[in-house]
């Protein structure tokens, strides 16, 4: 299973991204030029996206034991690269005024994307770990990026240290768990842990379950599932907005793909107690996330808490996959992830557009009266928030519909009840933000919304809004794609 030339073709997106990083690094080495670096990165990511889109219909190959490049992977490579590109576009104006070297940021962003690509196409623990750590390592850098800037009002250092320490601890747990799984199955490939032919004698189911739980916890931390969620708000708040966006979208999506593949391949859900554990985590996440966000006034923290809840929703679909014939729950997870990426990117994107590295507008009071000051941004933001709340005409609704469908088919009534309660609480804090935007006292002009100076960011927002609505109203094309690709997971 050595690598061959033919294997390189499916790896094209990965190679292109890597190439982008190398080119960008070289360019920096020759002469620092912020715009050039950004353009290289954005262009590279665009090409990577396109190449993945080009490859997607035909590709289905295992490249070395480490990576599987099937349609599912490529689909998420598209999502990942495209989102990374969008974030790069958001980052450019955001960092433009940073009084420090700005170019390395795009390197980190590129490298993080490499990590994400590896993760979404990983069905092997080695590539999982490598992808995950590459992603995390870059994110440490991105989170702490403005650390030298005196003007930065936020706490990038604190956020980064928190993220690093806790993430490393979680990695330790994950690694330990993988080791235990490996001790049992004898392979680092994702493989069934049930009825392994050469099970070590005397090995109880408890061992397997403990191992699975440790792995799950390691992943749950990255997904910020309760009770491993506490880092999330602090890191989100402290990071520069584009980094937060990255963390919240690609960081989550890639990790969930890994979890999905691992759970499906390992058949972990055949253990009832494991199902119980996952259900408990889902319940705790939904309730904790929504309750924490309830009266929060910081936008980034709200979105952080809400992401905890959203990951909980996703877990419901994941649990359902065990009870349901067919691929519906995988589709549910997939669609919801896409929806979540779109709406999170959009929501953070709006905040990014009005913020800069020197001044972030992340209190919901900053958005008072936005509807009247900048209807365009307000509409985008409202759309994203309503989508997060799962209101029709938006993609979030279809996503939630999927999850409900999976849950009903699996007869997960308790979890559905939790989902409903959670969503009900969720409405409150999403609407709180929307309401702020509707307020009419615009005595205090908190920020100028000049569309002109970052037109590309607005274009991205427009694109996301269109996606949000189109997928919310006529999701059929994407639904059929997801239906097709989901078969690769099972």
């Amino acid at each position, binding site marked *: 299973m050595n690598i061959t030339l033919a294997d390189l073709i499916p790896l094209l997106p990965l190679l292109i991204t890597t190439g982008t990083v190398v080119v960008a690094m070289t360019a920096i080495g020759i002469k620092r030029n912020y715009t050039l670096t950004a353009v290289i990165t954005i262009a590279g990511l665009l090409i990577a996206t396109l190449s993945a889109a080009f490859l997607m219909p035909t590709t289905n190959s295992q490249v070395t034991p480490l990576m599987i490049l099937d349609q599912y992977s490529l689909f998420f490579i598209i999502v990942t690269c495209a989102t990374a590109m969008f974030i790069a576009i958001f980052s450019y104006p955001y960092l433009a005024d940073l009084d420090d070297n700005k170019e390395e940021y795009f390197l980190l962003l590129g490298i993080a994307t490499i990590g994400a690509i590896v993760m979404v196409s990983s069905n092997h623990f080695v590539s999982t770990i490598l992808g995950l750590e590459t992603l995390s390592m870059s994110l440490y850098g991105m989170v702490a990026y403005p650390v030298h800037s005196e003007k930065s009002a936020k706490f990038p250092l604190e956020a980064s240290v928190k993220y*690093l*320490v806790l993430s*490393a*601890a979680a990695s330790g747990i994950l690694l330990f768990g993988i*080791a235990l799984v490996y001790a049992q199955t004898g392979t680092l490939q994702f493989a069934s842990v049930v009825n392994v032919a050469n099970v*070590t004698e005397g090995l109880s189911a408890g061992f397997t379950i403990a191992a699975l739980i440790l792995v799950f916890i390691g992943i749950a931390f990255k997904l910020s599932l309760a009770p491993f969620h506490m880092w999330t708000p602090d890191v989100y708040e402290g990071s520069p907005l584009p980094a937060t966006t990255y963390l919240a979208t690609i960081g989550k999506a890639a990790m969930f793909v890994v979890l999905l593949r691992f759970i499906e391949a390992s058949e972990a859900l055949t253990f009832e107690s494991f199902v119980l554990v996952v259900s408990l985590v889902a319940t705790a996440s939904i309730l904790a996330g929504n309750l924490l966000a309830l009266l929060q006034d910081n936008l980034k923290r709200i979105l952080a808490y809400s992401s905890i809840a959203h990951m909980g929703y996703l877990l419901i679909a994941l649990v359902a996959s065990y009870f349901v014939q067919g691929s519906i729950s995988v589709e549910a997870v997939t669609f919801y992830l896409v929806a979540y990426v779109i709406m999170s990117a959009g929501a953070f994107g709006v905040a990014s557009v009005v913020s800069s590295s020197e001044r972030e507008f992340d209190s919901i009071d900053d958005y008072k009266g936005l509807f009247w000051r900048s209807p365009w941004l307000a509409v985008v933001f409202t759309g994203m928030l309503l989508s997060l709340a799962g209101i029709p005409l938006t993609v979030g609704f279809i996503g939630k519909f999927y999850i409900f469908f999976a849950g009903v088919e699996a007869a997960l009534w308790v979890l559905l009840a939790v989902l409903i309660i959670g969503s009900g609480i969720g409405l409150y804090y999403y609407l709180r933000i929307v309401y702020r935007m509707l307020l009419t006292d615009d005595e205090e002009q908190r920020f100028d919304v000049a569309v002109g100076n970052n037109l590309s960011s607005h274009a991205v927002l427009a694109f996301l809004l269109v996606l949000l609505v189109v997928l919310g109203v006529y999701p059929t094309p994407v639904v059929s794609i997801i239906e097709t690709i989901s078969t690769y997971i099972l």
Partner: protein
Amino acid sequence: MESIPVEHGLILAAILFSIGLIGVLTRRNIVFVLMSLEIMLNAGGLAFIVAAARWGHAEGQIMFLMILTLAAAEVAVGLGLIIQMFRRYKTVDINVLSEMKG
């Protein structure tokens, strides 16, 4: 040839892991925290080596290599952050990093 029960190896790893965890939870000096993290990662590595030995594989060792790599990178970034932290706060007390809460 004499043999070692595999559970002894794993239990050793678990013990080291737990000690590392205690360190992370207890120490306020961030350098110690980082060291404790290394202990945890190392315990993971040990577990891999034990498992590899149980299967007679080389794969576990490769995984250990990767852990080594990531530990190195993590320490590099972590120490970089510690330097910045010390510059800003003149302390290595991890508790100063608690400005964001709620």
